[in-house]
């Protein structure tokens, strides 16, 4: 069903932009609540954003969004006024709200009504709300004991027999645990999953009561949620791991109702109330640490600057218009040169020369300004990640401290748009495969909580984005075994390959060292895709890893997509550009310096054997008639991810910034070429795809059984 809003498309666009902002504020706020515990400031911020969104969605006429934000407001208000404490359940529910709101926003953007309804989320919010109100009475007693008035939301009353069971269990030193879970909405066998979960609960301890009961499950009487109260002698995280093993089940809340160390039976008369009022150990308390500077940066970002929103297409157009100006200016300069030689001393030529110099300054200023306008702080991208890392960590049952640094670093807008997915993948990889399970970490003498860091910073003309973890690191031996098993490399070649090259095998298509394919990282999208996407941006990525210490992925990106610094060379009558980021050095060598090893032409530099590639041969260029082979060559040594080759060219022209233009769909992808550019004289030059050229050489070498850049002969 489509929507029919009483609004113009422009109004809807404004609403969507605003909703985006409010959702981001809320998400950042809830994350901070979870991390730093409750603070009136954060709660106020989330409340305000929910309130704003409620207002604007009501104006727009999206009833469901208004309803959810209204229900959120109720809970947030109680939190704000201290009538409700921030617990894992509250945080999870707030996140769930954001997911629902996000899908509503999507509905508005597409004009198509989705299948997400409000009932589930509103009842969850209601349960929390009710718990706050319902707990008010017994609270006074608990509060006197220093407890905080939090009871599991939505727990139905117990029968006297069940209460007795609960008390007896506590008497035996068992901990009562409250579980709230839900079966995935698209699970095909919800009853089976529910049954499995309840069995897992039985394995983990003694069930006091479950809603639904096992019998109800057998009769197929299922609700949206599964609740259980049980007694266990195990640690809560062990129980969580056991329950998380049930497929298609989401654990919404798992709370110990008494402290795990000293569970004492409550006085009989107060038992039921006490159970309700026991402070859950997982209730988050405000962190003692002072607020980090990071939140200051977030506040700064949240401030309303004097800005206008501009369509990216407009920026792109402006950029290419300036590019054309530059080209026309070059043409006029050529005319000027002719004028000056043909009519020496003509004052027309002088006027023209002055004007052209001025145009030159202005176009380059214009270019810089537009370039600047295209830059955004990476914060725009980075703030999407904490939530994702949290979810992945929760699913993988790992405790992760996620640190973001350098979020104020600016990057071209189009690069920011394109780099999101690769970074997300690398982060998932770090959480999923990099950081070890808590048990392994403790055994290795590391803190149970793993740290994953995402950092952006400038380095010369590039932006480096580093994704690193303090996990297990990559073991070259394991990679060797795995690569051989997957048939990526022969056993012999694997043995001879040095460790630093072995590490790079993880980029090969179809490689994944994870023994178990998880639903998080192992989704068929390998690191090879990540690498390909980064290379599409003229970037590169390298791995630094140490067994037992951790792994770092360093993504190196040009400041802007549209312009790259390049080395320009000539072969026959065509100019080729190579991204300067891949160029190691250039050299002039006599023909005699080229040797042949196993049918491959190589040169030796500083004792290292470097295979060479002649562009004339690689591109099968036609030599014009009367072409004489020179007795000296220019060689450009290029390197991508530690692999070096030398590219033989006719002449070196120089360095310069070039604007990358696509070759278009008619020409399509050409191996070895990543695009074209227009030079100052209006001619088109070809931009080389260095990593693809290196791969060609690598493939040839593999066929002849030699290695690339092993440093041996």
């Amino acid at each position, binding site marked *: 069903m489509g929507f029919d809003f009483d609004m113009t498309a422009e109004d809807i666009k404004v609403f969507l932009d605003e909703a985006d902002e409010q959702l981001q504020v809320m998400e950042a706020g809830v994350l901070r609540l979870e991390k730093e515990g409750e603070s009136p400031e954060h709660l106020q911020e989330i409340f305000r954003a929910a309130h704003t969104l409620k207002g604007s969605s009501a104006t727009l006429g999206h009833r469901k969004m208004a309803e959810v934000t209204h229900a959120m407001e109720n809970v947030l208000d109680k939190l704000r006024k201290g009538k409700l404490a921030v617990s894992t359940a509250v945080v999870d529910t707030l996140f769930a709200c954001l997911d629902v709101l996000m899908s509503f926003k999507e509905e508005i953007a597409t004009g198509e009504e989705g299948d997400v309804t409000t009932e589930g989320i509103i009842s969850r919010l209601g349960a929390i709300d009710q718990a706050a109100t319902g707990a008010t009475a017994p609270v006074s007693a608990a509060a006197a004991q220093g407890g905080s008035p939090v009871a599991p939301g939505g727990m139905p009353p117990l029968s006297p027999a069940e209460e007795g069971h609960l008390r007896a269990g506590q008497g035996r030193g068992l901990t009562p645990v409250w579980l709230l879970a839900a079966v995935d909405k698209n699970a095909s066998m919800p009853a089976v999953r529910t049954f499995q979960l309840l069995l897992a609960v039985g394995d983990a301890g003694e069930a006091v009561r479950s809603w639904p009961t096992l019998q109800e499950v057998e009769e197929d009487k299922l609700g949206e949620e599964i609740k259980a109260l049980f007694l266990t002698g195990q640690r809560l995280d062990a129980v969580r791991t056991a329950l998380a093993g049930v497929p298609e089940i989401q654990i919404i809340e798992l709370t110990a109702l008494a402290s795990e160390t000293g569970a004492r039976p409550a006085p009989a008369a107060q038992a039921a109330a006490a159970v309700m009022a026991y402070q859950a150990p997982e209730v988050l308390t405000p962190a003692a640490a002072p607020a980090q500077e990071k939140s200051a940066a977030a506040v700064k970002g949240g401030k309303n600057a004097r800005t206008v929103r501009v369509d990216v297409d407009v920026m792109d157009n402006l950029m290419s218009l300036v590019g*054309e100006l530059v080209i026309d200016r070059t043409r006029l300069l050529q005319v000027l040169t002719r004028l000056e030689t043909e009519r020496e001393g003509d004052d027309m030529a002088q006027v023209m020369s002055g004007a052209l110099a001025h145009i030159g300054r202005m176009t380059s200023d214009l270019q810089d300004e537009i370039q600047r306008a295209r830059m955004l702080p990476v914060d725009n991208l980075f703030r999407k990640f904490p939530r994702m890392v949290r979810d992945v960590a929760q699913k993988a049952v790992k405790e992760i401290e996620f640190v973001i640094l350098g979020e104020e670093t600016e990057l071209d807008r189009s690069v920011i748009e394109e780099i999101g997915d690769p970074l997300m993948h690398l982060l998932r990889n770090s959480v999923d495969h990099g950081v070890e399970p808590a048990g392994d970490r403790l055994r290795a003498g590391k803190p149970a909580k793993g740290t994953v860091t995402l950092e952006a910073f400038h380095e010369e003309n590039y932006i480096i984005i580093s994704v690193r973890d303090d996990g297990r690191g990559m073991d070259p031996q394991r990679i060797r075994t795995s690569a051989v098993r997957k048939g990526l490399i022969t056993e012999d070649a694997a043995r001879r390959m040095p460790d630093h090259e072995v590490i790079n095998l993880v980029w090969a298509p179809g490689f994944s060292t994870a023994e178990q394919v998880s639903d998080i990282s192992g989704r068929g999208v390998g690191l090879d895709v990540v690498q390909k996407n980064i290379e599409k941006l003229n970037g590169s990525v390298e791995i630094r890893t140490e067994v037992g210490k951790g792994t770092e992925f360093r993504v190196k990106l040009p400041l802007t997509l549209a312009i790259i610094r390049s080395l320009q060379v000539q072969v026959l009558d065509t100019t080729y550009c190579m991204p300067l980021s891949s160029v190691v050095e250039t050299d002039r060598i006599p023909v005699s310096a080229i040797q042949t090893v196993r049918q491959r032409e190589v040169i030796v530099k500083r004792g290292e054997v470097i295979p060479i590639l002649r562009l004339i041969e690689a591109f099968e260029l036609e030599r014009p008639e009367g072409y004489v082979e020179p007795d000296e060559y220019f060689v450009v040594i290029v390197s991508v991810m530690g692999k070096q080759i030398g590219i033989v060219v006719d002449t070196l022209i120089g360095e310069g910034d070039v604007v990358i*233009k696509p070759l*278009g769909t008619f*020409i*399509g992808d*050409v191996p070895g070429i990543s695009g074209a550019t*227009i030079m100052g004289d209006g*001619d088109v030059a070809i931009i080389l795809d260095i990593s693809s050229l290196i791969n060609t050489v690598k493939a040839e070498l593999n066929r002849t059984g030699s290695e690339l850049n092993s440093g041996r002969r």
Partner: protein
Amino acid sequence: MAQQQQRDTLTQIVVFQLGHELYGAEIAVVREVGPLQRVTRVPRTPRYVEGVTNLRGRVIPVVDLRRRLGLEVSAPTKATRIAVAELEAGQVGMIVDSVQEVLRVPASAIEPPSPMMSKLDADYVQGIAKVDGRLIILLDLPRVLQREERKVV
């Protein structure tokens, strides 16, 4: 369907020369005509792809139409032009020997391609227009300029 619509209407056709023959294409497809300018060869592309050129700051591919149609290839002259076609895949420049004129041709003057035509793949031809005793071969440019499956280089 297109032919029915054309029955009583005038079609505007850009007429150009390849060798001794006249060819035409609908003016809606041919966006503009310009002088032959420098074309940069792109390696690892089919022979008929002459390369890429700079059309007011955009890089567009250029096809040698003679080669594409399997005609004899000759050196460019002063009259050689690049006609730019607007296709779904973007703009594509076509090298032609010369551009003659823009003609208004009544639909009734256009014959559908005959099965007798052997020289050109009938697939590429929309029809033959007879104007003042001259025969103009109307090209179906989107088909002519369609890229066949790339050969693995």
